[in-house]
């Protein structure tokens, strides 16, 4: 069996060498596997390895996913044997046939790969003893089908997609059934599941699974209401149609039904669904086939119809019916694949398969005509052919159908009607192909079509002949059908076929069918005219397509709900959700712990009022400047709040961050409009409601969830042990640099990366152009150099204070308010001052290698962390004595923090506040007239220092000089180089 599975892997290789003739070689392993299968089964039969129902079994089990108890279980019982042979023998025939069907030159690698892959998948499907493997194989056949249809050209894409969607939908139903069965029985093993007691114990479950399986099988075997894909899929090339859509793949559903018949045959839903859908499909297919001109399409409807009969047989569920199903499966596979192949032969020779065109031709193809007639006769149920035997068996089963007395009558009558039509369309097929027509203008074109080569018609002739041989000697199939039916019935079934059973009722039915059928054939033109107007109002394809389109359209609507890329809507949804959470929480929590201590101070209210005013002012602000100023108000209010709550370091940090934020905002303000847009008052309502709700939720949340517990253990530890453990008296700082230095490391990284990010951002996209204010250009006060003198002088006065302050804050941070952040922020404020005091943007003394500083900062921080490993842990502070002073590596860490902060502040001023390099912007400065022109400013003439800075990159250390070499030919990079 493994041989067959492996065949598909070598097939591309073979095809590469042999082209279309690869089919000859590929047929061999399939036949070989068939022989092996039979002999293995015979061995098993001899050695007596059998299942509970007594039929022989061959099995293998390889674990695949033991975690979910899935294994590669293969098991061949009688039913599997029947289908195995079907798959392999028909497969071999098709392979041989393909060698002549395909174009002599061309890429057939994927075709043979997919065909053999399909054979393997189909084999795995019928042999699977594990539900998962069964499902996998099921889907694999679907995929092979999809690809085989799809590779037939542009017109095949839509059908391929439709087919895929329908069959995958069925597959999903099967998956649902599979999972339910696995959970219900606790095993994935098919043979165990089939005999599990749960099916008799739990009726509802059994019904549900039965329905799922039935539906899955219906999609695969093209049963009502999922039948539409089958004719649609006929765009595929003939070998594909013959193999997948006649003999094998569509039989997967039949196999599934047969496989689960022992479990569900007693479930009424099963019987009703199968019989109903089967008969409807049988009738619909047969009638539809009568109306087709395309030979292949006719065969497709015929297949649908025959499958309907098979499904009906399985639905009847008696041993006799199952026996009929098995033999009819075999018979159908033989005649239908042969017929398809013949249609392919005709198509190839006559270059059409449309009856109306064939009518104008003379097909001189005696062998094809004869053999095709045989196959068609088998389909029609003409005696002496296998089709007759199977139909007789079927009718017998139908006549003996269980249930209310009317059932056998109805079923038999319906089957008989379907058979009449079958007879009619079988004749129509042959006559349509070879019969010609009494066309008046037949002299117009009398193309003569000659017989194809034997290698081409050999395979179908074999199939057709087999129908005759087995029809004459049906007893040859006794054994096979016996084991097959036994397995599907779950009990011993004996099959004895004979050519002559005597004058049994079914014979009369058969004869009636043939008689009426013959009449229909004779009156075929009238019949055809009578049926022409009755076109089906709803096409299944349309349903699939409509569903698909509507899903896509509805999807567009759903996507449109959140389609905006503007942040506002996306931001408001979480706010609303938070309100909902708060409301749910308010409903859930009934008692809260008591408030500990007195959480408020009367003067807190001053801050509340100030912040309230600030917030309202921010909401009301119509100009950007006002908004920024009142943002400062709130920020300063927060500073005082932190002070009020005993958080000195936080207050200082907040203060500095606030002002640096404002400084950066002002740098950008010149590129933004002066005022915000006005929104009409009613557009304020919803934002106000959402914001109000969110605010209220927050207030309630803070009120309910804070201040209701005693001091936390961690807090107590810091307050009592903090100094002893670290030697630092600023406990907040000890947390930052000692206890939770990792947070701080992350934070300094964030800062540094912010610098890198804005550099990347501004490199990727230029900021929007500046908009100048309405400046009184000729005022005596306009000279920047004159008028910055006050600021410069003040800056000179403050510079030593800032530098000293920054240093002191850095060094004392471990003991008193300060630390790397605060110190660096003060230093940053110094740079801000230097920037603001400069007479021009260009001459502002903030040019420093900011990226280098950032890199160094992070490196120092992490490096300190590595030092900690000397004492066994990352970031563990060390306390070495240097020159007799007790020091701590926490200070080094703070230096890292300092560098990173300075780096990002410098990055902001350099990237945002200074004009881009003149020489370094060929694109911006040269070809883009819209670029800001700083040169126009009176006082902007570069100073001596600037000229030096612009002419060449600063030579701060060897690294940057090397960069300048790297980029000597790339002036665009020069400001990036400056940054390092």
């Amino acid at each position: 069996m493994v041989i067959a599975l492996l065949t598909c892997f070598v097939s591309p290789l073979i095809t590469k060498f042999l082209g279309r003739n690869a089919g000859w070689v590929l047929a061999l392993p399939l036949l070989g596997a068939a022989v092996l299968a039979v002999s293995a089964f015979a061995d098993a039969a001899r050695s007596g390895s059998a299942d509970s129902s007594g039929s022989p079994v061959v099995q293998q089990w390889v674990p695949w996913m033991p975690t979910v108890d899935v294994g590669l279980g293969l098991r061949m019982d009688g039913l599997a044997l029947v289908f195995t042979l079907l798959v392999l023998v028909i497969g071999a025939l098709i392979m041989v046939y393909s060698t002549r069907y395909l174009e002599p030159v061309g890429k057939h690698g994927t075709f043979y790969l997919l065909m053999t892959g399909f054979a393997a998948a189909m084999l795995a499907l019928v042999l699977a003893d594990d539900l998962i493997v069964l499902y996998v194989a099921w889907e694999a056949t679907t995929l092979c089908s999809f690809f085989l249809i799809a590779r037939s050209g542009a017109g095949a894409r839509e059908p391929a997609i439709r087919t895929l969607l329908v069959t995958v939908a069925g597959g999903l139903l099967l998956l649902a059934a599979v999972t339910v069965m696995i959970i219900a029985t606790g095993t994935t093993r098919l043979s165990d599941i089939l005999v599990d007691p749960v099916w008799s114990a739990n009726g509802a479950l059994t019904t549900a699974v039965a329905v799922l399986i039935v539906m899955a099988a219906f999609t695969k075997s093209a049963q009502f209401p999922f039948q539409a894909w089958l004719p649609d899929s006929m765009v595929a090339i003939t070998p594909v149609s013959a193999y997948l859509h006649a003999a094998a793949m569509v039989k997967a559903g039949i196999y599934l039904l047969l496989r689960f018949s022992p479990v569900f045959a007693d479930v009424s839903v099963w019987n009703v669904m199968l019989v109903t859908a089967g008969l409807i499909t049988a009738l619909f297919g047969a009638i539809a086939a009568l109306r087709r001109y395309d030979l292949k399409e006719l065969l497709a409807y015929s297949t649908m119809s025959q499958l309907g009969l098979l499904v009906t047989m399985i639905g009847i569920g008696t041993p006799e019916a199952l026996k009929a199903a098995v033999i009819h499966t075999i018979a159908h596979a033989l005649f239908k694949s042969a017929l398809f192949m013949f249609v392919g032969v005709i198509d190839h020779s006559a270059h059409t398969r449309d009856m109306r065109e064939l009518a104008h031709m003379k097909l001189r193809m005696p062998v094809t005509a004869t053999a095709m007639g045989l196959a068609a006769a088998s389909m029609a149920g003409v005696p002496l052919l296998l089709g007759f035997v199977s139909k007789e068996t079927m009718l017998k089963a139908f006549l003996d159908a269980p249930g209310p007395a009317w059932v056998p009558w109805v079923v038999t009558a319906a089957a008989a009607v379907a058979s009449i039509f079958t007879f009619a369309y079988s004749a129509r097929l042959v006559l349509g192909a070879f019969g010609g027509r009494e066309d008046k203008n037949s002299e117009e074109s009398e193309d003569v079509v000659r017989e194809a080569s034997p290698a081409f018609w050999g395979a179908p002739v074999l199939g057709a002949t087999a129908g005759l041989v087995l029809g004459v000697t049906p007893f040859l199939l006794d054994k096979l059908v016996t084991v097959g039916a036994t397995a599907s019935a779950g009990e011993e079934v004996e099959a004895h076929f004979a050519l002559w059973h005597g004058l049994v009722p079914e014979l009369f039915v058969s004869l009636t069918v043939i008689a009426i059928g013959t009449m229909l054939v004779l009156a075929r033109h009238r019949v055809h005219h009578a049926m022409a107007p009755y076109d089906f109002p709803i096409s299944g394809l349309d349903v699939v397509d409509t569903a698909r389109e509507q899903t896509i359209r509805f999807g567009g609507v759903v996507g449109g709900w959140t389609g905006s890329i503007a942040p506002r809507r996306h931001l408001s949804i979480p706010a609303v959700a938070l309100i909902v959470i708060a409301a749910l929480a308010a409903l859930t929590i009934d008692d809260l712990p008591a408030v500990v201590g007195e959480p408020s101070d009367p003067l807190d209210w001053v801050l509340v009022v100030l912040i309230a005013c600030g917030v309202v002012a921010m909401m009301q602000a119509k100009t950007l400047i006002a908004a920024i100023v009142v943002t400062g108000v709130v920020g300063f209010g927060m500073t005082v709040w932190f002070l009020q709550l005993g958080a000195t370091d936080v207050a200082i940090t907040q203060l500095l961050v606030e002002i640096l934020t404002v400084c950066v905002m002002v740098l950008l303000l010149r590129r933004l409009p002066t005022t915000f847009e006005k929104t009409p008052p009613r557009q304020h309502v919803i934002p106000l409601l959402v914001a109000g709700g969110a605010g209220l939720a927050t207030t309630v949340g803070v009120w309910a969830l804070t201040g209701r517990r005693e001091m936390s253990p961690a807090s107590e530890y810091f307050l009592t042990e903090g100094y002893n453990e670290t030697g630092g008296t600023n406990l907040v700082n000890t947390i930052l640099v000692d206890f939770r230095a990792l947070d701080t490391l992350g934070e300094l990284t964030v800062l540094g990366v912010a610098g890198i990010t804005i550099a990347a951002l501004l490199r990727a996209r230029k900021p929007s152009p500046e908009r100048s204010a309405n400046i009184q250009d000729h005022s005596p006060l306009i000279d920047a150099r004159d008028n910055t003198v006050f600021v410069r002088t003040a800056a000179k006065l403050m510079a030593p204070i800032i530098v000293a302050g920054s240093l002191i804050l850095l060094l004392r941070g471990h003991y008193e308010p300060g630390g790397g952040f605060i110190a660096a922020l003060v230093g940053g404020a110094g740079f801000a001052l230097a920037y603001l005091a400069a007479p021009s943007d260009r001459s502002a003394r903030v040019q420093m290698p900011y990226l280098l500083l950032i890199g160094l900062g992070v490196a120092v921080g992490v490096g300190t962390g590595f030092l900690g490993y000397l004492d066994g842990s990352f970031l563990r502070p060390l306390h070495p004595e240097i020159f007799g002073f007790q020091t701590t590596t926490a200070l080094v860490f703070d230096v890292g923090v300092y560098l990173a902060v300075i780096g990002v502040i410098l990055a902001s001023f350099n990237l945002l506040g200074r004009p881009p390099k003149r020489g370094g912007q060929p694109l911006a400065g040269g070809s883009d007239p819209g670029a800001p022109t700083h040169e126009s400013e009176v006082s902007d003439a570069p100073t001596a220092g600037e000229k030096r800075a612009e002419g060449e990159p600063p030579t701060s250390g060897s690294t940057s000089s090397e960069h300048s070499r790297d980029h000597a030919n790339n002036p665009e990079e020069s400001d990036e180089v400056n940054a390092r």
Partner: protein
Amino acid sequence: MSAALLPLFVAVPLMMAALLVIVGDRRVIHTVGLLGTMIAAVGAAVALVIEFRSGGAIAHGISSWPFGIAIPFVADMFTALMLVVTGLLTIVCSWFAIASGRAANVYFAPLVLVLTAGVNGALLTADLFNLFVFIEVMLLPSYGLFVLAARHKGTLQQVAGARLYVTLNLLTSTVFLIGVGFIYGTAGTVNLAELAGLATTDPTVAISGAVCLFALAIKASVVPVHGWLAAAYPATSPAITALFSGLHTKVAIYGIYRIYAVVFDGDSRWLWIGVTLFCLTMVIGVLGAVGEKTTRSILAFHMISQIGYILLGVALFTFAGLTAGIFYLLHHMIVKASLFLSTGAVEVRYGTGEIGKLSGIAKREPVIAVAFFIAALSLAGLPPFSGFVAKFTLILASVEAGQIAAVVVMLLVSLVTLLSMLKIWNGVFWGDSKSSEKTSTSNADDDAPAASPADGDLPEASPSGTAAASTSGRKQSVAEPASVAQSSGGVATKEAPTASATRADPETRASSATAVAERPRIGMALAGPAVFTAATTLGLGLGAELLLGLSATAAEGLLDTTAYVQAVMGS
């Protein structure tokens, strides 16, 4: 591995990032530094996986402070698996970025390394505030990566996407911070081990934790807070979309799994909320996907849909559910990256991802087509790919848990998933290749070779193949001997849009002067990442047991958090 070494997962990438920034713009050093660090990280993570193969956890209090004071880093199977997969994805996406020219600047490698440090830290930490910090460490470089483009070639859409991305993530992390504040306010600690099970007994802790989970849910883009992701993700470059899809949402999901397991102890009272929301996420996500018009926006919506599946695992909170969820999570990271990378490769070379503007790619780029199709089928949950195992185990778990409605939703959604994948397949890969030619030169993102020949940092734009091969940023031209051998014109003509190479289709020749020779334009270097990830999903489907077993071990660790908690307490 000694637990004390766990911080190195953060420290080493950070240090390397810092060094690369200091070293400056030397592409070779950057590439080697980035990939070397990542490979080392993955190696270490694999060692962790091996260490935890039968369960257990290790933890270390950073700086050796006592329990409750130190920030604990802790790893168990779940952590280790996430470390491996995120690391692998980073490598693959970096590879793609390098091949597509997106990495050709001084910022890429450091930013990716910091991102990695952030991801690793977020995965390892057992301290909620520290988690906040590491989420930020992840986010800041992401903001930079989001807008990375050739000089002055960043698009307005990119900036708009970045705005949305930044603001949403900032909202998320601030909400998370507030949640952490509430947790500290109610429980007096932010240490996961100290918080273990507290939410089951103290409703105020539960609601505080819910705020944190909600924040992570925004980040993970759970309905109804999902739309931002679909809008923002397609706005950046394909490499970055792939990277972010594998890292950001997934870390959020990891956080949700971890916090719910530890703090809520899998409290079954709230699971119905999860099941409902996550099913909605599946449905809304897939519907959104099927309605979109560009490959990446389809894929972005799929991400939302799939996140519903992944989180369903935690909403079931059974052994089977968690196993399936974790497997799904890991599978999804790979397959999603694969899809983004294969469609991204097309987008990079053909300048658009818009369905209808492209067609016939399958004929011209069979390798990418196969990679895409494998990943697409995997995403739809078809066998024999990892997506099938993921979906199957999840459905199994749902059936077991009696969540039949969820099963129905999952089945329907996977059908629609297939539908939308076919939409891409039909719109981009099938059809005549002629319509793609017109768009290949104009309208291109900076990733596309045609963007600007003057662009110094685009490897493809160099005037001649030899000069190109000699510059440092051009590894990929050297690394694709196959395509070079195939193309008679050499590298230069291969990329040049006006190349006078043979044209297969006469109609093309007539219709478009800018048409390109009908031969693969996506070299192996660019296709490689997609192929690799597609192969991985196939491998994980056929050899599902490996990952399934590991996921099961990880699930056990979530179901019974004793090992995790004990490890932290003993650290």
